């Protein structure tokens, strides 16, 4: 385990058995996450970046044991979450919380938001006396910028941004140490997105929270993350701190992601034409190619890339899995 990390994930793999294609055929296996390792330091934010299907959500959910892992370990505070017995795992749940992408489907429509925020306290901190719980819910509403009189309302009476504030209050209830933020602002309008991002960062400063932050939006990642892992087809292809990754992307996929992301400086009026471009879609995770998974879309692929799988190589400025990385 790495020194001083809160969550240290080693060689994590997740597989899903799919439906049989024929009556007697074998069940095809989807390799969603293939040997992923990373570590998250206390009080910091690690970004998991990639396109849909790259395995970023599955990685995070398997690391906190909300999805069963096929192999690997996830050391949280010195204990491997993946080998804990269920009761011991349940005890630790209060330190691990999640904020989901869709504030519409992640809140129970039949429950008042005050009860939604109180529920984690009832489940995970039953020793807490009832008046203290009530007080805590009030406090949480204040922390996330909602008014205490809104506790009696139902989720549908809130806007998307306010619902996400309720989700954040619920995640904070048990004073967790790690929060998995799964695309927490993707469903929100830009103006609301800024409010939520600022709130998440302020809460991190005030409570020393660690975030595992899943996003496909590189602008958002650049704003909130300290370190970034770029995923492609279930593997980390590049890992670096924010300044290095954004100023000197070394994996061609990272470079392509940065070139594809909209930016205010690329103007039609100035005749902007994209340079680094990937074509087509990622290969299917059911039939992963033998060499580098990105080779089929890589603008710089060589014969070696299609035959030999590149390993993640570590050095002073980060890690990259590419036979021919950018300098």
């Amino acid at each position: 385990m790495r020194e001083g990390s809160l969550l240290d994930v080693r060689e994590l793999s997740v597989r899903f058995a799919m439906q049989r294609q024929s009556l007697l055929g074998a069940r095809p296996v989807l390799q969603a996450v293939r040997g992923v390792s990373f570590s998250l330091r206390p009080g910091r934010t690690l970004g998991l970046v990639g396109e849909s299907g790259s395995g970023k959500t599955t990685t995070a959910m398997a690391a906190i044991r909300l999805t069963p892992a096929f192999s690997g370990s996830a050391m949280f505070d010195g204990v491997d979450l993946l080998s804990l017995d269920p009761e011991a795992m349940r005890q630790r749940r209060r330190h691990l919380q999640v904020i989901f992408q869709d504030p519409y489907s992640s809140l129970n429509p039949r429950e008042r938001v005050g009860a939604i925020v109180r529920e984690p306290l009832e489940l995970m901190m039953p020793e807490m006396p009832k008046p203290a719980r009530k007080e805590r819910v009030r406090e949480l509403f204040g922390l996330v910028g909602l008014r205490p009189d809104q506790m009696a309302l139902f989720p549908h009476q809130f806007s998307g941004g306010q619902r996400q504030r309720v989700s954040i209050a619920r995640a904070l209830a048990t004073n967790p140490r790690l929060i998995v933020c799964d695309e927490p602002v993707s469903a929100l309008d830009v103006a609301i997105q800024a409010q939520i991002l600022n709130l998440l960062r302020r809460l991190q400063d005030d409570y020393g929270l660690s975030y595992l932050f899943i996003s496909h939006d590189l602008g958002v990642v650049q704003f909130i993350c300290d370190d970034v892992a770029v995923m492609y087809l279930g593997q980390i292809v590049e890992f670096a701190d924010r300044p290095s990754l954004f100023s000197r992307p070394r994996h061609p996929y990272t470079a392509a992601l940065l070139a594809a992301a909209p930016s205010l400086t690329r103007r039609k009026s100035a005749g902007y034409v994209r340079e680094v471009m990937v074509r087509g879609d990622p290969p299917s995770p059911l039939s992963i190619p033998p060499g580098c998974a990105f080779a089929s879309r890589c603008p710089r692929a060589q014969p070696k890339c299609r035959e030999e799988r590149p390993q993640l190589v570590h050095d002073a400025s980060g890690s990259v899995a590419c036979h021919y990385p950018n300098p």
Partner: protein
Amino acid sequence: MTEPLLSIRDLKVEFSTRNGRVTALDGIDLDLMPGETLGIVGESGCGKSITALATMGLIPDPPGRIAGGRILFDGEDITHADARRLRSLRGADISMIFQEPMTSLNPVFTAGDQIAEAIMLHQQLGRAEANRKAVELLRTVGIPEPERRARSFPHELSGGMRQRVMIAMAISCRPRVLIADEPTTALDVTVQAQIFDLMRDIQKEFGVAIMLITHDMGAIAEMADRVAVMYAGRIVEKGSADAILDNPLHPYTRGLIDCIPVLGKAAGEQGRMPPLAEIPGVVPPLHLLGQGCAFADRCPLAFDRCRIETPILDGRSHGVACFATEMEAV
């Protein structure tokens, strides 16, 4: 001077709702010139999509209705055109691509069939000829193995390919106006970039005028020649893309630009990024709009007059509807 291809004048659209009659569009003026891309930007609920639907004659009536104003296509008033005229316009002269290609394609027909249908409808071609053209179009929009893909059903295609099929269908009759309503919102960034590149290529090749509806200022920068910024059913600022992005005048436009975590801003610097600018509050629901500027409650520059009078978009090429910036300019 060239005439606008599509011209919207003082358009008003109303909806009857549980909360009474609300004004979804309140006096919209827009011009789309041949071959240009006009970006329409704003938050959800500001009336971007209603503008597009009104242009296509697709406002559901009831509960909605066009309560005033005119929509001119190539000089012809199509505001209250009958169903027959609208059918011949849609697809042939004005076509539209939507946000979610999965729900806008018919799941029980192949991609090729759906493109061929549009061709047969508008161009009086036989099935075989239309099918051949459909394959050709799939090749034009960059779908690999177009012969095979023409026989695929929508669920067998990726999101990016579905949007390409939608674009193939939309350009099948060489329309002069293409309305794209958040065409890439459901797609991954690398796929979004490919779709944008494709739309630009198609514009270069066919000279189609594009009305691009988006909430993304980055998409505006990359795609638009001119921009209209909408808020609560009105245009609050319009001008060239450069003018809007480099010198935004309306406090709402400024807020929209400042609150984006822009890629590349201080990318290489150590330490934390400064907090993002925020626009406080949310877009007001339409039935609660009172008198005065709809943005006044969220505006850092609002003063008494803003809550009483409604500012009008001035007629300059870079126009703004704001009392506070008017004062600034003086």
